[in-house]
């Protein structure tokens, strides 16, 4: 548990951090450090330079404007879980953040670090995909945004370029009549999600007008389930179960605790339960 030799640089601004990224090949950005440092201690990651962006207050905070909630990349899981703004507009994101690790992890870990690391068992990615969030990136050549559904590319791989910093995510607020839920099947060793199901349904006059389900932990990236069959129904248990059973992934991940087949099965069960919980909250 001793990392290899590395240099440490602390950035005072986003621009300085971008400059340090340019100057140092293979450098790694560190926010809360909760993914990077364990990898370094196991020597699975041996970056020559660590650029600490953890004190860039400009990247921290939660605010709502124009039907969308902006969450700065350095916002901690604890702040997200406790956010009144998110509770009002995107409660499922706060719910998922409250499932991450323990209180100490939530006090240090950040949403930007979490999604940039892109662990398949992470709680945040399926929620961002469900909500249609956009991820905002900045480089010396400007800024760009990418849809959460396109951001996660593969196991531990994202769309973040080598010269880019993840600055914030924009999360569309849930509309009236919408219920949402995140249900987690926790790994007894790591505390990560074996399966994490994020669901939302919108109900008007007793009928479903929109529904979504995204399941984490089953595939390398969050798996969206086509639950459009629910639209127009009264969201009966049978209709929900049928919709959730559409979960499919070509190459499910597995470990000694839970095989790929089993994860797909639990994904269907938890998808069903998350949809039912969302219905009950709508």
């Amino acid at each position, binding site marked *: *548990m*001793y990392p*290899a*030799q590395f240099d440490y640089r602390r950035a005072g601004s986003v621009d300085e951090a971008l400059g340090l990224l340019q100057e140092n090949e293979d450098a790694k950005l560190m926010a809360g450090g909760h993914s990077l440092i364990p990898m370094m201690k*196991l*020597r699975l990651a041996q970056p020559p330079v660590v650029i600490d962006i953890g004190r860039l207050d400009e990247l921290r905070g939660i605010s709502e404007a124009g039907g969308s909630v902006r969450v700065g990349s350095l916002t901690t899981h604890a702040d997200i879980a406790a956010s009144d703004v998110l509770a009002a507009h995107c409660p499922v994101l706060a719910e998922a953040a409250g499932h991450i690790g323990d209180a100490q992890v939530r006090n240090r870990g950040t949403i930007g670090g979490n999604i940039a690391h892109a662990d398949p068992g992470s709680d945040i990615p399926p929620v961002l995909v469900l909500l249609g969030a956009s991820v905002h990136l900045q480089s010396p050549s400007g800024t760009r945004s990418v849809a959460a559904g396109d951001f996660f590319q593969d196991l531990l791989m994202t769309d973040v370029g080598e010269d880019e910093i993840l600055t914030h995510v924009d999360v569309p607020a849930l509309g009236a009549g919408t219920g949402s839920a995140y249900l987690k*099947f926790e*790994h*007894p*060793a*790591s505390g990560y999600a074996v399966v994490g199901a994020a669901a939302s349904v919108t109900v008007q006059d007793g009928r479903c007008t929109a529904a979504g389900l995204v399941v984490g932990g089953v595939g390398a990236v969050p798996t969206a389930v086509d639950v459009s069959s629910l639209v127009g129904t009264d969201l009966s248990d049978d209709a929900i179960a049928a919709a959730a059973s559409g979960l499919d992934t070509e190459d499910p991940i597995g*470990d*000694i*605790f*839970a*095989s790929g087949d*089993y994860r797909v*099965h*639990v994904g269907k*069960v*938890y998808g069903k339960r998350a949809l039912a919980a969302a219905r009950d909250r709508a």
Partner: protein
Amino acid sequence: MAGVLGTSIKRREDPALITGRGKYTDDLQAADMAHAAIVRSPYAHARIRGIDTSAAEALPGVLAVLTARDVAAAGIPGVVPVGWLLPDLKTPAHPMIAADTVRHVGDAVAVVVAEDRYLARDAAERVAVDYEPLDAVADVVAALEDGAPAVHEDALGNVAFDWEIGDRESVDAAFASAANTVELDLRNNRLIPHAIEPRAVLASYDSSTGEMTIHMTSQNPHVHRLLMTLASLGMPEHKVRIVAPEVGGGFGSKIHHYADEAIVGLCSMKLDRPVKWTATRTETNLTDAHGRDHSTHCALALDAEGRITGLRVDTAAAMGAYLSTFAPAVPTYLYGTLMSGQYDIPAIHCHVTGVFTHTAPVDAYRGAGRPEATYVVERLMHLAGEATGLGPVEVRKRNFVPADAFPYQTQVALAYDSGNYGPAMDRALEMIGYDDLRTEQASRRDNGGKQIGIGFSSYIEACGLAPSAVVGSLGAQAGQWESADVRVHPTASVTVYTGSSSHGQGHETTFSQIVADKLGIAPEAVEVIHGDTDLVQFGMGTYGSRSAAVGGSAIVKSVEKIIEKGKKIAAHLLEASAEDLEYVDGSFRVAGSPDRALALGDVALQAYLAHNYPDDLEPGLSATSFYDPANFTYPFGTHVCVVEVDTETGSIDLLRYAAVDDVGNVINPMIVDGQLHGGLAQGIGQALWENAVYDDSGQLVSGSLMDYAVPKIHNLIPFELDRTTTPCPHNPLGVKGVGEAGAIASPAAVVNAVVDALAPFGISHIDMPLTPEKVWRAVNG
């Protein structure tokens, strides 16, 4: 002081520990201290073609890189010995540093010493070892198959020993005439101990005196000194001091003598400097002796009334790559001898094959053989309840050794000195509300959805391995007594030097309670010293739930000697006859004349002044005792677990856990409860989560806490505890032992509960750990 024994005095150890002021081995700093990093095999089995240390040695700040060649050049014994010899046991050499062959992932091949620990790690990565990988076998059953890769050339078929106890013919006869039989193939899963504090050592050799002080994570410093000097370093025993500072848990893993501590000692001798090594968590998982790892076929024969007539057990027990300190005793004399459980079984036969595998060694881990035995017996009793239609309660009650049958001679050597099993079962049923639970279970079975199950475990434990002559005849290379030196100071405060060695158990608190009670003084007036071979007389240490029963009894013996001597001094001062004196509430007084009395302090002061003193008496007021018990002690109890099973996912929720334990007289109820809580957590952990998994090539795939699940507080529920009290008849305190009871009883209770919940699905067994996927697959055929 009256009322001290049996009182939940707060642990005096805790203020320092919970405020972070406890000094553990890794907290210690020595002037001029260097740091070691051990280079370990990444292969489960390989030949070492060569080792190139030059790149490591070239790093500035690297002080030495040692290999097996340096061990040989040092002219020391250089091996790690086994401390329990069975008949025909194969004892292949276990070199401190592997010379030509590595036999498990983590086997030491070299050590780097550098000025700081980071540099040592960096340099260790530069040691280039040329391995020729060989076929490996990690599974205990696969290792016995024809053509399995051999772990040691001189252990044919990977068999370390072939052992049996009981009478095979009478068991065969019982099965031939049985009205009912049940049988089971089971695995007892391999566990990694996971003490929170990893193993660590700070060895300080001083060539000017030829002395070495070793601070290390030890449950038994004198035993470690003996093995370290005799077998590994070849130093004279009196030139080595071993100190166990605060030790952060052991569960058995810090009983054993490991190569690593000896390697660090050698480094210090070579460099003439203090050298420290602290295992990383990864190293801990790869090299701490693991626990359990059995494959067992077992069967029970019953007559038409549901009385057991015979028990047959055949077990393959993994030993790992080398025989660890007490490894051969664990699946034999601590396992086969427990097979009678709480039951009157007229015929028992247990056969055990000890098996070498290309894995970390297996040795004593909390319970050590007794959890494995309890699991066999109590799983079979559950099946017997089903097969006979008697159910889990009645089949047990019908077979309990009757209360009037003690002392009870089992068919597997042990003679139970005392017991009364019915009341513990009855109390457990009452606590859990058994009849209501069965009603709820029936209604859930009718309605579908999540199912509940109720599981029992009526266990017997054998603590305080004894007496020495008997365990010696069974192969132990150590005595099993304990020592105590009790010194009354001139001002009547007391220091106790105990051969037990606390590593979390609270000896300082409980032992002070014993002395306070016997001497009629305040517990605060008693200091307890342990864990230092220079301060304390030879002692055996703390393991096997022995410290209260054996170590505590040694203290009582010393206190009794002190009172006897005190009576002679007081008689002289009071001009009375010693025979007429009694010792009451801290005073020596003439029986029948309570105003003719002297306080302990008056007598103690005179013992050291010796101004007005009996002619034939030596000055001083202290006494040393070596207490060798007449027998084991036999705690017992009944545990009941209630679970809820989500049959859709296979997830298990604990709903209730009631434990009624009989550990004899209780010195400190809070500490006893704490021991039970910890033991239950570990036993439930074994049943539901913990599993050391090697793949077919011998890689430990559960090598980190990301994959190996130790129980966390949010996984558990409040435990419901109660006790019955059947004092041990053969030790002066009437105590039995409690450190392992929770871990012994609980795996069977949990598994029986889950299997009970799933009975409608035709499920009679699932191997531990009961992961949701396994349960789900069982439910879904």
